């Protein structure tokens, strides 16, 4: 049913990942394109500097539909890379399906698949991805549930393990490196080229360490605003080359597609600087600074992967916490998998309960309008309650057994038998169609990780709340009204 196709820092180097770099607008367009494909029902794209992954839900839960969904997503990614050169992309693409895809989603959200395990940024990036996918119409019942569970799992991991404690950030490592080159940073000049969130974080730390800030941005207004915020100066974009002569640390994070600082530019700047050291921090994806500048004497260039690797190496002591977090994620993924499997029999259970209840209700209604029409409202309510209790009692064992066999190959035979015995085939089809077209319920987990407990009885499986909601709908359309 759910598939994920994409690549990350684990399998693809930066020069491959930057060919798939896409901005927020581009992500929405990409998702809309995917959703127009008949094989895809839901789609979500997680695009960060370390990964681009598309989670998609196929039209039906069969091998054939899963293959079609994987193929559609792969084609979309190859087409995306096509703008910058698609050659050689496919071998880097990794695919996970069904439970593996869910487990991967949970691990990504919990920062267990991050280059720096435990880093907090991924949670915000997942939320952004969810919002973009919602805007593009890519979130249906399945992905809504999956992503919200993923965010819930991520919060549990952060609160129940110490994986995020004592975290070294990329910004703080960049500042440490600057100190390794220059020593005290008081009086040094930090040049901010572009303005990403992480770059601003690094600039803030450099200013705190005593450096002066200089901002160069394509938008002069934004440059002035940042300079004002950090108490520095700004220069027009055209003066970037001369600003390099005055700077000691350069933090680049523009959204430019090509290099904004070339080897030739830095070579000229170094002559004017008379060989004084120059430290570049390139946080942009695609990269802003030509990697060849690192070959110039007294020039040091660190890109996002270099910095992340240093942070990751410094966090080796977190293995025990990561193992605890893995156990937690695995447990949650299993629970979600169980819900997914019962999803296949939910329509049958709903139809069965509706049919039995409707039959009983019709008989009670006939009696209430005939021999028992003298009954008071209180007595009628008592009868309604009795019918509900009878339905629950009668169907408790069959419902439990159908759910228990949901993941078993024999479950299909059982479901077919129930359809046949109670003549449910048409009703089940209608319910499944309605479920597929239903917009997702507003998930409270985004704001509260413990929300499921308030929606369903404690200890209920994730599917139980779904059953309850649908039954409530049937009841509302019910038969006891006068």
């Amino acid at each position, binding site marked *: 049913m759910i598939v994920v196709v994409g690549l990350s820092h684990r399998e693809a180097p930066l020069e491959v990942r930057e060919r798939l770099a896409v901005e927020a607008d581009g992500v929405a367009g990409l998702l809309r394109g995917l959703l127009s494909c008949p094989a895809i029902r839901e789609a979500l794209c997680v695009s960060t500097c370390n990964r681009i992954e598309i989670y998609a839900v196929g039209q039906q839960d069969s091998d054939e539909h899963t293959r079609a969904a994987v193929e559609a997503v792969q084609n979309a990614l190859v087409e995306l890379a096509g703008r910058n050169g698609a050659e050689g992309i496919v071998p880097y693409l990794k695919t996970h399906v069904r439970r593996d895809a869910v487990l991967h989603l949970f691990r990504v959200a919990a920062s267990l698949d991050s280059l720096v395990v435990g880093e907090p940024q991924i949670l915000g990036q997942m939320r952004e991805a969810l919002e973009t996918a919602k805007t593009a119409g890519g979130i249906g019942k399945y992905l809504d549930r999956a992503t919200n569970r993923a965010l819930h799992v991520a919060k549990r991991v952060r609160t129940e393990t110490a994986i995020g404690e004592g975290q070294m950030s990329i910004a703080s490592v960049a500042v440490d490196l600057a*100190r390794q080159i220059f020593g005290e940073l008081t009086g040094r000049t930090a040049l901010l080229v572009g303005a990403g969130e992480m770059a601003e974080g690094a600039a803030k730390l450099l200013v705190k360490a005593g450096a002066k800030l200089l901002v160069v941005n394509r938008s002069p207004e934004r440059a002035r605003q940042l300079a004002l915020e950090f108490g520095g100066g700004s220069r027009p974009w055209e003066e970037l080359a001369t600003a390099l002569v005055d700077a000691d640390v350069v933090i680049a994070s523009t959204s430019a597609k090509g290099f904004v600082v070339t080897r030739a530019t830095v070579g000229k700047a170094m002559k004017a600087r008379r060989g004084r050291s120059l430290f570049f921090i390139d946080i942009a994806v695609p990269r802003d600074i030509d990697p060849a500048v*690192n070959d110039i004497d007294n020039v040091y260039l660190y890109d996002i992967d270099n910095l992340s690797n240093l942070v990751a190496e410094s966090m080796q002591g977190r293995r025990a916490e990561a193992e605890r977090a893995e156990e937690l994620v695995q447990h949650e993924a299993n629970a979600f998998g169980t819900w997914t499997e019962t999803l296949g029999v939910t329509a049958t259970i709903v139809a069965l309960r509706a049919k039995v209840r409707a039959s009983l209700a019709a008989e009670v209604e006939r009696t209430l309008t005939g021999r028992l029409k003298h009954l008071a409202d209180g007595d009628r309510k008592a009868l309604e309650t009795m019918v509900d209790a009878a339905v629950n009692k009668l169907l408790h064992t069959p419902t439990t057994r159908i759910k228990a066999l949901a993941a078993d190959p024999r479950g299909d035979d059982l479901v077919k038998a129930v359809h046949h015995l109670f003549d449910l085939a048409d009703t089940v089809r209608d319910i499944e169609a309605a479920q597929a077209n239903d917009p997702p319920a507003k998930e409270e987990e985004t704001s509260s990780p413990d929300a499921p407990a308030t929606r369903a009885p404690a200890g209920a499986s994730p599917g139980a709340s779904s059953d309850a909601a649908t039954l409530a709908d049937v009841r509302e359309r019910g038969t006891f009204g006068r």
Partner: protein
Amino acid sequence: MGVELVFYATVVAYAVATVLFFRYLARPAGGADTRKMGPRVLAVAAVLHAAYVCLASVIANVCPVKSIHFVASIAALLATGLYLAMRRRWNIDALGAFVAPVSLTFVLGSRFVGAADPAVGGGLLAVHVTVNVLGDALFLLASGTAVLYLVEERRLKQKRASSVFGKLPPLDALDLAEHRLLLIGFPLLTLGIITGTAWAHRIETGSPAEMARALFAYATWVLFAAVLVLRALLGWRGRRAAYGTIAGFLFAVAVLVVYLIRGPLGGAGGAT
């Protein structure tokens, strides 16, 4: 017997200081105690070393600067003293990991290389030896900072994390310290060259050892001059300056080696 005791105590102190410096650099984190202990033990070693030089000179009845036997040893002692005096101001703490083992080597070398102290006389020669010993001490420190610079620069260029991350001095501090040491050492070297040339001219032996010493000494001077001039004119600093400094120091060592192997009588008082 007392002199022997002081000698062995000096050797042990330098050896312990070496171990402490390397242990500090090799430990993945912390090591604040080891960081403090290294310089302290090195200071004790320097005091013992100075005592040994004085006692040995008194017993041999020869002025240390006129004794070939002590030339390398005194250069190492001066380098250690300079390091201890400047380590905080120039932020070159980790240089102790270079100074301590080199001083240990020179102390042992002075004991086992060059058996006798030939008589070296004359005021000119005393000045010559004194300035050269001081110069060698400075170049020893300069080449040490150059080596540390190259190690640190290579690590930063290759983006490798290591256990010494954050323990070596900043690159700019190393580069500046190396430049300052050369700036101070170069006039001494120049004076050494002048006095050496005058002495060589006076005795006019023209032996191959004397010629080799003179050649290495002039090469040393040219190399250090080039490092300083190119830095001032073309901004050649960092790696290039470090390579130049190490090359210059190797030539200075070559002069010393010829001096120790052949002795001053091969042409008493070469260029350095």
